[in-house]
């Protein structure tokens, strides 16, 4: 290279370096606590946290909103020491895997803070005896019925089946009860439970690993009685798929639907009353248990690496787990709060309805059991397969229920070790 070229190269290098220095990202200040949330919770958290700026003295809080829940999950999966947040507002079933992957850090709460929540709330956010976050809002489903079709709340599952059989042709019903929210695994646990089965049984606040979760004979008998015709074919009362359920319920073609507490506004806007209740069981006064999971504000290991662990823990306690924080947040988020005192605050009919249904027939959602383990299958895959086998493929309910029970037992045996 001649002198001129050296000069030009030098000029290019100087311009390049100057530019890169100007736009180089500066490391975030260690006084900032970073919270990641999805597209719904993010803006609401930003609003509430900014409205009262001193949740944690000496720190500022930055809420990063992701375009969707899936985008948030992907970001959590890909987070590194340099990019990860201090707190993640996420699903309870992220706890086991994220803790296993070394992304979450445990937190110990004082007894005063613990008292603000039910023990079940902590089940969801714990892994191997350690708590990884604080409960935020309750995710559950409840059954809604169309009062234009059904005048009174059903007392038994049989009442619903009778109504469907009597009005199927006359009112052109496409189903009797369907799952509009939560899918045919999470949302449909209430139906499985109404029929007498369960993913696991609870006893004195703990998982009962002795009793079988399903009595195959009883479950098969109830399925045959309520969901199948004399030839063993589905009557159409309960579809094995959740596709089209919401639209058909809103169109008046399905009298009963299980809906999620995140979508109640869609029903209210269409003029439906929030007559929410658990799915009725075989006998009057019994109900199918539904998963009452909580979303959590989860502490990450990145907080310690960024030097804001104490601040992040204070934010979890002072804001996310506080009565004031929960009331302020749920006044804009409009979900049932997990915090007990906030549950007594001025809530919408839907918040009250879902909360009530959950308190009547809720069962904690324990990811360590439900997610399955090596040698078994996850509950999330098994239950939809069970519905398909008995309602679509016409397989023998008893033998399928026996298989389901076998897998559930394997999952319980493996899962309780991680509790």
């Amino acid at each position, binding site marked *: 290279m001649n002198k001129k*070229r050296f000069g030009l190269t030098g000029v290019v290098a100087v311009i390049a370096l100057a530019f890169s220095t100007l736009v180089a990202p500066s490391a975030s200040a260690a006084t900032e606590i970073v919270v990641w949330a999805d597209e719904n919770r993010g803006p609401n958290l930003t609003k509430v946290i900014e409205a009262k700026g001193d949740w944690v003295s000496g720190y500022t809080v930055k809420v990063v909103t992701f375009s969707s829940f899936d985008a948030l999950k992907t970001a959590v999966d890909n987070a590194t020491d340099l990019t990860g947040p201090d707190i993640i507002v996420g699903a309870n079933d992220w706890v086991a895997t994220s803790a296993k992957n070394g992304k979450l850090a445990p937190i110990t709460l004082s007894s005063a803070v613990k008292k603000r929540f039910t023990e079940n709330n902590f089940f969801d956010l714990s892994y191997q005896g350690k708590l990884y976050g604080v409960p935020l809002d309750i995710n559950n489903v409840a059954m809604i019925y169309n009062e234009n079709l059904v005048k009174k709340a059903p007392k038994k599952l049989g009442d619903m089946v009778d109504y469907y059989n009597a009005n199927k042709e006359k009112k052109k019903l496409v189903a009797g009860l369907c799952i509009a929210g939560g899918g045919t695994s999470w949302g449909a646990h209430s139906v499985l439970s109404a029929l007498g089965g369960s993913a696991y049984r609870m006893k004195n606040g703990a998982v009962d690993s002795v009793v079988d979760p399903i009595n195959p004979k009883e479950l098969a008998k109830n399925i045959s009685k309520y969901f199948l015709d004399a030839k063993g074919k589905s009557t159409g009362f309960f*579809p094995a798929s959740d*596709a089209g359920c919401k639209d058909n319920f809103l169109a008046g073609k399905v009298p009963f639907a299980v809906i999620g507490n995140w979508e109640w506004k869609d029903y209210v806007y269409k003029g439906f009353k929030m007559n929410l209740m658990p799915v009725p069981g075989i006998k009057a006064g019994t109900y199918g248990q539904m998963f009452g999971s909580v979303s959590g504000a989860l502490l990450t290991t990145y907080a310690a690496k960024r030097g*804001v662990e104490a*601040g992040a823990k204070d934010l979890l306690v002072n804001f996310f787990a506080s009565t004031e924080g929960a009331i302020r947040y749920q006044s804009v988020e409009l979900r049932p709060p997990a915090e007990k005192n906030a549950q007594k605050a001025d809530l919408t009919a839907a918040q009250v309805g879902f909360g009530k249904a959950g308190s009547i027939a809720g069962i904690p959602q324990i990811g360590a059991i439900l997610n399955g383990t090596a040698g078994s299958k996850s509950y999330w895959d098994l239950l939809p397969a069970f519905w398909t086998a008995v309602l679509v493929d016409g397989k023998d309910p008893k033998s399928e229920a026996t298989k389901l029970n076998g897998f559930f037992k394997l999952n319980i045996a493996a899962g309780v070790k991680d509790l």
Partner: protein
Amino acid sequence: MKLLYRGKVTKTAKYLVVAFVSAILALLIQSAFAQGEYEIAAFLAIALVSIVIVYLTDISIPFKFLLPGMLFLFAFVIGPIVYTLVMSTFQYQTGNYISKDDAISRIQLLGVEADEAGTSFDVVVGRDSAGKVAILASDILTQSYFVANKEVKRDFLSTDITLNSDGIATAAPGFTPILDSERSTLDFEVSSTRFRYSDEYFILMEGSALGVLKRQVLTYQKDKDVFVNLLDGRTFADNGKGNYADVNDPSQILQPGWRSPIWFSHYIDLFTDSEVRKPLIRVFIWTIIFASLTVLTQFSLGLLLALAMNRPIRGRRIYRSIFILPYAMPSIMSILIWGGMFDTEFGAINNLFGTDIAWFQNALFARAAVIIVNLWLGFPYFYLICSGALQAIPTELSEAAAIDGATPRQIFSKITLPLLLQIVAPLLVASFAFNFNNFNLIYLLTGGGPSSPLDGDIAGATDILISYTYKIAFGTNIQNLGLASAISVIIFIIIASISLYGVRKSKVLDTFV
């Protein structure tokens, strides 16, 4: 103006472009280094140096044209292939995600336990008389108060300290609470310090106002690379698979594990582990059938329509426009619409035909649905290709054959089709390779299902290799990225072989030799 006048504007523009690209690369190098991505930083540095040398000197004129392509080839083709290959030799799955050093650090941090009573203290963080970070702790129940730093604990009587209305100590002799402005500065020290309580127990801070009594249960012995449980004496040693396992009961492992090299274990599992092998063989067979049927049906329909449209018929232009419509629509939209139409209870297809076929719950029907939808998505492509190819075949050939007495069927089978196949054969091979990896269709239409986990199914009936790999890598709560990488390498070898065969057969590269 002078520069322009002398015709040097292009050179100036070149220098500016090189400067801009160099600046971007310098920025990325800095960022990659900061994030510890040294391989990426090294590649970017090589790219930067190459660009500067090639474009600011006259070392090689051809390289000025080749360099961008080569850099992109390395960055987006060779790099990912090498990375996938490397990852396939690692135990890289849920629970084995971080480095070994990080795992050791996490196990040590998690290897503490609270005392049986779950004792906790209300705490004020400050400094002691020696200026060391210390805590002023209060146990309201037992009315015990003390100041502790890392080494020393000093007890106080309630009469010696200042209590607030809740009975929590707020000031003590020789103790100065920190200011709010100091909290973030001292955060790391406060969070990581084990404040002295007794020989066995220490206090760990949970935020800035709560201290919890803990003791170490698992301790790491660096010289032996083992963890020892101080309570029951159990020893956990490196099991060579990315976990510390109990030496007496290897099924008992400590979490988290780490990404550990296991060399060819995943590849061996593909052939020897029936849990992996059986579904893989089933999926592989269906992938071949799916790709073959897709090419066959799409080509057949496309050719049929092209032959029909090759004759002068009324409204030919309108028909041609209609045939191209499925190709013009975004395939994602088409797939989702078809998905709704195939729904058992509420779908248009069952309603139209008065059937109640469970399209996506029955393996046979789900496979049929996949082929039908893919036919809809792909036939316009072959229609266009065949239309063009038919027009390239000289009409004199068929006219001469007709004069010689050949029937239309003979003309088609002996003249048109062989000539057509010569032209479209490489495209058929390419289409096969594309459909071998047609992830979008399977993922959006059936999600790979149906499967019957109750009968032990792992893969779904419509899963093809790529969707099955995705499930293993990301589809469930238990992700196995290492195994998924190994399957990806196998897929790569298959696709590369098919492509190479296609290229050789079509003699595309002959023109370059």
